[in-house]
């Protein structure tokens, strides 16, 4: 399996030009705060994600992981704090602008575009498609250029479907896929946007162990090609096993961060997970 992945990866199947050469710490979050009504969901979160790593963000339910994700990707606007991506302040930017810069997310509950085929889902993702301008798509003299571009994209999309072993589903309506297949589709689609950093919100929730293994293989293969990952997960064991760097959140704050070994030995973490006073 992993051999096949490597082979395809070297043929340049994925993204347009692979991850860009980023700074050592492409994503940096400083003092992020968010309140919903009277509840403080995120309270001064500060952390960084290093290039080419698999960083895990863990914490019990309600720790503020998903809210942090939404703040970083522009879904919510933070009350205070700063998000820096590739040296640029992206705090409060619209989600689509953040995605275009190369910081792309997936959703906790896989959000396939159900009424579209898998192929259409995938074809949507690539950025800077000239045919997205209405006039280029309808004007007789200009449409051939759009068609050429699309023909090339189709090939790239098929290669990516191969990489994720979902090419047999290409013509299916995305709404008819199983939970695991949706997760694969979502990751594949996110990759086609040609991101540098991928934020995966619980990519393994509801995925069977075999598929989980496969997803992990693919994530590791991509990481070796230079992609950076930030995973939200509440399966502690999985994060400890797979990630180089772990960030632990609790009640909106960063409890601790470091290597899995460091985090494991931290008493506060154990207490947070066992529900003790912190």
């Amino acid at each position, binding site marked *: 399996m992993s051999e096949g992945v490597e082979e395809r990866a070297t043929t340049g199947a994925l993204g347009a030009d692979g991850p860009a050469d980023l700074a050592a710490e492409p994503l940096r979050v400083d003092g992020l705060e968010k309140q919903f009504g009277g509840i403080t969901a995120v309270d001064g979160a500060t952390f960084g994600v290093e290039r080419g790593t698999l960083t895990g963000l863990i914490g019990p339910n309600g720790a503020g992981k998903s809210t942090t994700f939404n703040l970083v*990707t522009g*879904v919510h606007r933070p009350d205070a704090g700063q998000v820096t991506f590739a040296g640029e302040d992206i705090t409060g930017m*619209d*989600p*689509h*602008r953040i*995605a*275009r810069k190369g910081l*792309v*997310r*997936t*959703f906790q509950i896989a*959000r396939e*575009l*159900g*009424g*579209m*085929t898998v*192929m*259409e889902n995938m*074809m*949507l*993702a690539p*950025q800077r*498609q*000239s*045919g*997205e*301008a*209405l006039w280029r*798509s*309808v004007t007789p003299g200009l*449409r*051939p250029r*759009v*068609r*050429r571009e*699309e*023909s090339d994209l*189709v*090939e790239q*999309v*098929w290669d990516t479907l191969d990489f994720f072993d979902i090419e047999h589903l*290409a*013509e299916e*309506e995305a709404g008819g896929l199983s939970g695991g297949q949706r997760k694969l589709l979502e990751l594949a*689609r*996110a990759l086609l*946007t040609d991101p540098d950093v991928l934020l995966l919100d619980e990519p393994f929730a509801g995925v069977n162990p075999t598929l989980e293994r496969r997803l992990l293989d693919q994530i590791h293969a991509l990481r070796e090609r230079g992609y950076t990952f930030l995973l939200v997960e509440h399966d502690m064991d999985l994060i400890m096993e797979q990630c180089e760097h772990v960030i632990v959140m609790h009640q909106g704050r960063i409890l601790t961060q470091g290597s899995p070994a460091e985090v494991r030995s931290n008493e506060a973490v154990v207490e947070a997970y066992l529900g003790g006073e912190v």
Partner: protein
Amino acid sequence: MSTTSGLVGRIADADLTYVLAMLAGVYALYLAAGLALGFDARGLLNSVAVVTFYVAVFAMLALALNLHWGYTGLFNIGVVGFMAVGIYTMALVSKPVLGSGGSAAQVGGLGLPIWVGMIAGMAAAALLGLVVALPALRLRADYLAIVTIAMSEIVRFTLLSRTFQSFGLFGRTVGLGGGSGLILDFQSPLAALVGTLGLEGAYAGLVGLVGTVVAQNPRAVVDQFVYGLLLLVFVAGFYWLLKRAGESPFGRVLKAIREDEQVAGALGKDTDRFKIKSFMLGCALMGLVGVLWFMPQGAITPNTYRPRLTFFVWIALIIGGAGSNTGSVLGGGVFAALLFQGPLYFKNLVDRAVDISNAPGSFGPAVAPLLGAGDPVPFLLYTVDSVRQLQLVLMGVVLIVLMHRRPEGLLGHREETAATVPLTRRVAGEDDEPESQATAADGGQR
């Protein structure tokens, strides 16, 4: 439809076959009804011309609404407002200057050519669409619905208001005419078109030819018939434009917005821009239909543009199946022929078979014999006589049955793939297909 070949071509032709079959069926039905009613040649030609007109306008409106609802998921229930803005703007621009000629009109226009007025009408409808869209598109879909229907009523009340009955613009006295409406005293658009194309001679020949069959005033019949055919050309134009728009990366983003706007945003698509573009394009087309529909009518009054017209368009779209352009055309045709025009023909047919002129004038006398003597005839006569009022009930029943039995409409189940090229894997050695073939590409190939 350009010349097509191969599998893709055959499927596109299948779509064309659906539409032609629908038209043929409608014509057969109307000709049969006309013969049964004892129409002469003039009557037959007229009934076909009138039904062509309505089939065409509803097909166009359903196509435009399909761009909003079927593709982008924008819940626009203010269709009629955009139509009204289209025709009123056109009238304002193209009506002759006040005092020129022998017109009895109370207010004039800018006196510009008809085509300038048509473009102005589309532009005004698109601009109104932008104004409505800017605040509303950021809200949830149902708020857009509220804003659009409110807008269409605001438009109607503005047209009714005395304030705008007459005002000065570029030194001309123009106006919206208030409650009494506007007289469209510009040159007949058809005559203008024939004149521009330099086809007066040929047209006169055609009128002469028809004159051999229709004795009195053949010109009126020919005008109506040719205008209907012209509208069918417009339907083809709408279809061509919207099919290309839909089967493209642009259309793909619209579909993604319909399915899940947040996902489209997370994939780097500026969803607000796409929604505004889609909305404005659809509104411009609705404005154009407003112009095409009411331009040859001689006069317009504000109360024509009540929300019921909007709901007619929705029924047409639901019959055809939201999401499918071909379905929209079929739905528009079926709605216009059977639900919009059909009941009147039915009434005339019954009237011819049994004289219903002595039908009871109100509900009481109609029901009393049924309950008292068990005589259903007065009640049935009353029902047929009131078909105009019952038309809306009939439409409601059709809508309920459709929602229950076939919510996807005639063709809504069929996905029209949003891409300019087939999304199948390229077989080694196969070259790019020529442009003409792929523009006809269609999702039915699966």
